[in-house]
């Protein structure tokens, strides 16, 4: 049988090769260069002005850090809680905001609005709102006769409180991704299900949920990576406190950087990079595995 060459392979590209150069230069200078430079600096004692190669000493020291394990566990808890809630709430909000409700467009804006606000601003605002005695949240609860917890001062609650604020701020993006996923589902499926006797709940379980799986994968991946890297909100709200109760890897790294251990904090960043890879790569492989349909 004669070999048929695939047309995609023989067809010349629509654009000349050098068209990709501007993007490649920007990507190389702003992304690849710092990445490889940080790999190098993580192996040095670095004072910004000079660096001495010390092998893996920084990594050894980083892992001896007393609160590192706590930071690692906190990071994973934070990522799981925040991404899990974003998936669930994002999906529910998207279902609500794609149904025939009044003021749908306005409500979509309201849900998305927190995404646009500066994270540090949100952190400071919520720190005030969550004040144990004078914060509006606890004052509101007190009016209902409920004694509110010390959101950010209780060591058992501080991390979760910050994660909840992260969900408040980030759920709008998850909702938008889910809305895009849901409106892309052809109406025919719902109509066929209705004729087959499906209730709205069954349509959600058997049609919406499986068919917006690509949106779910995107939301989980984005919010899980975001959760693992989280720093700004933690720093604005608790600075890792009380004590080290809400420290995450990123805040531990920042503290080392503040103390002038640049090589050490760069090694911490490399560890964080590897951690994200180790957790996210298998996760996305798992999530994408069953996507064998159209």
């Amino acid at each position, binding site marked *: 049988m004669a070999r048929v060459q695939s047309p995609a392979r023989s067809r010349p590209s629509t654009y000349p090769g050098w068209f990709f150069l501007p993007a490649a230069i920007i990507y190389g200078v702003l992304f690849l260069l710092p990445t490889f430079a940080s790999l190098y600096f993580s192996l040095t004692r670095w004072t910004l002005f000079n660096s001495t190669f010390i092998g893996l000493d920084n990594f050894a020291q980083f892992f001896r850090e007393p609160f590192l394990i706590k930071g690692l566990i906190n990071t994973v808890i934070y990522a799981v809680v925040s991404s899990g809630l974003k998936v669930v709430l994002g999906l529910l909000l998207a279902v609500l905001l794609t149904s025939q409700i009044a003021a749908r467009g306005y409500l979509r804006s309201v849900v998305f609005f927190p995404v646009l606000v500066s994270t540090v601003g949100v952190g400071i605002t919520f720190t005030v709102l969550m004040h144990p005695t004078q914060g509006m949240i606890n004052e509101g609860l007190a009016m209902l006769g409920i004694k509110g917890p010390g959101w950010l001062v209780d060591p058992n609650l501080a991390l979760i409180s910050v994660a909840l604020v992260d969900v408040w701020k980030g759920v709008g993006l998850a909702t938008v991704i889910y809305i895009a996923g849901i409106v892309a589902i052809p109406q025919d499926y719902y109509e066929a299900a209705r*004729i087959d*006797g499906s209730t709205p709940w069954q349509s959600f379980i058997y049609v919406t949920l499986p068919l917006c799986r690509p949106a779910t994968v995107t939301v989980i991946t984005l919010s899980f990576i975001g959760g693992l890297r989280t720093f700004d909100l933690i720093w604005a709200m608790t600075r890792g406190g009380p004590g080290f109760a809400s420290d995450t890897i990123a805040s531990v790294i920042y503290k080392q950087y503040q103390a002038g251990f640049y090589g050490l904090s760069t090694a911490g960043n490399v560890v964080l990079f590897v951690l994200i890879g180790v957790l996210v790569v298998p996760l996305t492989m798992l999530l994408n595995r069953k996507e064998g349909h*159209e």
Partner: protein
Amino acid sequence: MAGLELKALHKTYGQVPVIKGVDLSVSHGEFVVFVGPSGCGKSTLLRMIAGLEDITSGELWIGDRLCNAVEPRDRGIAMVFQSYALYPHMTVYDNVGFGLKLARTDKAERDRKIRDAARILQMEHLLDRKPSQLSGGQRQRVAIGRAIVRQPEVFLFDEPLSNLDAALRVDMRMELAKLHQDLGSTMIYVTHDQVEAMTLADKIVVLNGGVVQQVGAPIDLYQRPANLFVAGFIGSPKMNFAEVSVQSINGGMVTVASKDISAVTVAADTKSLKVGDRLTLGVRPHHLSMDASGTLVGGVSLVERLGNETNVSLRLPSGATWLVVLDGDHNLRPAQALQLAIDAEKVVLFDAAGQSLLAAM
């Protein structure tokens, strides 16, 4: 046993009327085809029967139940969609059994019904596949299977063959006809393809602009169209039309002529006619034949030789173009003059309002 009764059905979207009073009765086991051009309301009417569109006014009876406010699942209907609407994440087995699963049918019973439907549609080997692994024809089969397992009293088809290629469409058309024979259920079928309508239907409903133009057996619609719209829509190639004027009336016969046609005498309902009236004459391309004494003369502008027949595009003296289908092969050249006879027994006259003047049979 379920027939259908549609009484003065109306549908409006906001201020826009889409279905403007449809009355129709369908008996049990009938194969009814809704046909009409795009936007004529045929799919809307089907979706009203299915319960996917609300009925603005009028009554829909399925069997002996008034179904205006009945949920789709309780109407005893099943529908095959143009897009097939097969759930991409489910296997063929699960797709076909989806309705039964929702109805909490016992697992063994469900399995039996799914396999029965698969056997009827010869798709037992496809049960473990996902829709993306099927060809267009196979998907169509699965969609029909999903309808069959519910053992509905009425099947609804919304342009089910329009996504298939021409050859497959002919095959599936025959299979649908056979399925109707085997199941004996009432079927309502929407299409814009009049060949599908002619070949499948016991009864055709021609719709235009949300109004029923004519209801009848396919051959009746072909031979005795009620108006200009039906005459032009049913039959392929399309009927030729010419403006004519009445020359003389003699009992039930009227003689008409125009610039292009010297004289044709036609049986017609002549009660309201008088000499000089302007009418429209409709002649099907197959009802013209080469004849040296014919009443129609024109110049050949285009020839399509198909072997068993020859399609000729004919330019008439008035500038109009008629299509002629001649039996057998004719080696005609462009610009050649052609003299044709009109089969006067098969032509139809239409009055100024476009209504046919066929003599009562």
